[in-house]
């Protein structure tokens, strides 16, 4: 009843609320855009990182040659996990000396990876391709390179390159490859090259069919941190597996010992991303600090505006008090009105925010090298994650009500006779 009465009052005094409603609308639209864009940026960064680090959850070997010997058991454990979007199956070249040569110039790669295109090609198709696409399954001569490498060497699709590296026995070896694709990537995950897994196995001296990294890309709502212990448990049913590796320092320490009794390791993307986690946390911190500041300013604004509105409604309030409305009930009524105001701002601002976010997603930012790590196909990809948006919405309504609290309390505190007199 009170809520309906508040709704009726809200509509009746809508002309008085117009300015503050406009402010709330714009404010929540800005909040929505900020949250959607930063969520999208963080997700893009994570997806790029997951591709670079062979998945959100990664299984690897502590053997000296890094081969996973129990591939079937690992595969079985991975597919049992919930929320799996796709699998990764790779041979990673761990030394920092792989170099691409083209027309006399060379670029040292940060990462050279052999990919099982039969498993990962569909996922690679979603990469930000500048030209070309992943090699076909069984194409042992194809290579895809990050734009950073291609730009430095002046490479185009179809160019022949020579890739040099060392075998497991530290012999100099090389492959002559053809550029099948160039993908946009950032300096953080740049200077990478992907080739066919069997071509790399053969070239570095792994037996055919070898694999050094197996992982899963998870659906966005699935937490790799939550699933990792379960994966360790599943693996331990058939293969001795090391305790979950929680950071890179631990990884390096354990890798130095090469524990033969527990040859498999499991690592989450977050553990791999200690450095990047700082970027993600900074992004989120900026968003939430900006949101907090905005809400504080909004609360002050609502308070001032509400004081004026309630001043104009002094006689109405006095009448209601004279007719027997208690202070508490009247206070609740005024706060409910403020709640409706906040809710209206939320709905309208949310709609505007979604529209603006989607429009921002249409702009091409690919010329901005620094921004590339946060983009999908050179564009922002806003994500409307329910929980943060719901929190922001709740905070908006609450802030509006809190802003209205002091003026409302001042108004209901007045004696009816004073209110009626003041209203004249």
């Amino acid at each position, binding site marked *: 009843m009170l809520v309906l009465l508040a709704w009726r009052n809200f509509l009746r005094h809508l002309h008085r609320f117009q300015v503050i409603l406009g402010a709330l609308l714009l404010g929540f639209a800005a909040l929505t855009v900020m949250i959607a864009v930063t969520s999208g940026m963080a997700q893009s960064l994570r997806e790029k990182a997951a591709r670079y680090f062979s998945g959100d959850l990664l299984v690897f070997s502590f053997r000296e040659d890094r081969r996973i010997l129990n591939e079937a058991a690992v595969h079985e454990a991975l597919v049992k996990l919930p929320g799996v979007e796709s699998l990764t199956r790779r041979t990673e070249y761990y030394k920092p000396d792989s170099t691409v*040569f083209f027309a*006399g110039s*060379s670029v040292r790669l940060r990462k050279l990876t052999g990919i099982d295109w039969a498993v990962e090609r569909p996922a690679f198709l979603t990469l930000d391709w500048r030209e070309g696409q992943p090699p076909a399954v069984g194409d042992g001569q194809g290579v895809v390179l990050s734009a950073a490498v291609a730009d430095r060497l002046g490479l185009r699709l179809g160019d022949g390159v020579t890739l040099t590296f060392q075998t497991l026995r530290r012999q*100099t070896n090389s492959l002559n490859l053809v550029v099948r694709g160039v993908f946009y990537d950032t300096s953080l995950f740049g200077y990478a090259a992907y080739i066919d897994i069997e071509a790399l196995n053969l070239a570095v001296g792994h037996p055919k069919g070898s694999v050094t990294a197996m992982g899963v890309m998870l659906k966005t709502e699935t937490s790799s941190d939550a699933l990792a212990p379960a994966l360790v448990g599943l693996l331990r049913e058939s293969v001795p597996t090391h305790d979950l590796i929680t950071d890179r320092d631990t990884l390096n320490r354990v890798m130095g010992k090469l524990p033969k009794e527990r040859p498999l390791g499991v690592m989450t993307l977050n553990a791999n991303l200690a450095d990047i986690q700082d970027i993600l946390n900074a992004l989120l911190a900026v968003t939430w600090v900006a949101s907090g500041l905005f809400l504080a300013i909004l609360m002050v604004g609502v308070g001032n505006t509400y004081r004026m509105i309630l001043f104009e409604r002094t006689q109405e309030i006095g009448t209601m008090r004279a007719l027997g409305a208690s202070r508490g009930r009247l206070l609740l009524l005024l706060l409910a009105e403020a709640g409706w105001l906040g809710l209206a701002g939320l709905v309208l601002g949310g709609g505007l925010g979604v529209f603006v976010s989607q429009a921002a997603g249409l702009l091409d930012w690919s010329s901005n090298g620094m921004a590339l790590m946060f983009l999908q196909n050179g564009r922002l990809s806003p994500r409307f994650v329910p929980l943060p948006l719901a929190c922001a919405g709740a905070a908006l309504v609450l802030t509006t009500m809190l802003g209205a609290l002091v003026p409302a309390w001042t108004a209901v505190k007045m004696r009816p006779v004073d209110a009626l007199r003041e209203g004249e």
Partner: protein
Amino acid sequence: MKVWFLVLGCFFCGVFPAFGLEGRALLAAIDRQVSFETDFSAEYTVTQDRPGEPKSVQTLALFRRDKASKFTILILSPEIDKGKGYLKVDNNLWFYDPVGRRFTVTSAKDRFQNSNARNSDFTRSNLAGDYRIVGQSKVALGKFQTTVLELEATNDGVSFPRSKIWITDDLLVRKTEDSSLSGQLMRTVAVPQYQKVGDRWVPVSMVIVDNLKGKAVNGKMRYETTTIAIAKPNLDPVADLVFTQGYLEKVSR
């Protein structure tokens, strides 16, 4: 039939006589031509030519004690590199940087001072220990009649797992083509002229062409080259102190 298998087997094992020597013995004889029983020292000038860039020149003093598998290299110029050095004792190789006054472990496979030469180019030749002959043929190389030996590494410590060497009748290597395991030509080394030191030989100069690094100049591909000129060869005994880390530290001060 068995005889044919024997003949073919012998051929591929490299036991067919060449220069009156068998495969490994032949490589050992080639090594012997450029190795010294005594100490050896010389002044090396390393000229790096990168197309489109000014040439850079380094001079260095090299001291070799082949019988103990040791060498010391002391960079004499340019001023910025002066005092840097290398010390090899057995299979250990250190690089000394006087700025940080620190020795760092390096590898014989690494590039020498970012040139196209490898650190292993300054040590004694050990073809017999590092390679086996997998093929041979007779080829004319300019004015030289040469035998080409195709070599395959027998250990993983060498800079290149496959090599082809052109040798003249005097068992001197006139040209080398170093390749990766897959057969990709990585670099070519030419030794146009030797100088006799005692009863052994030392190149007057070596030209190392990097077959992967270079630049197109006026539409023509020019590869990076490193020329190593060797002067003032000397067989006088070198003090033991020279083959120590202390020596490099001392002379760089």
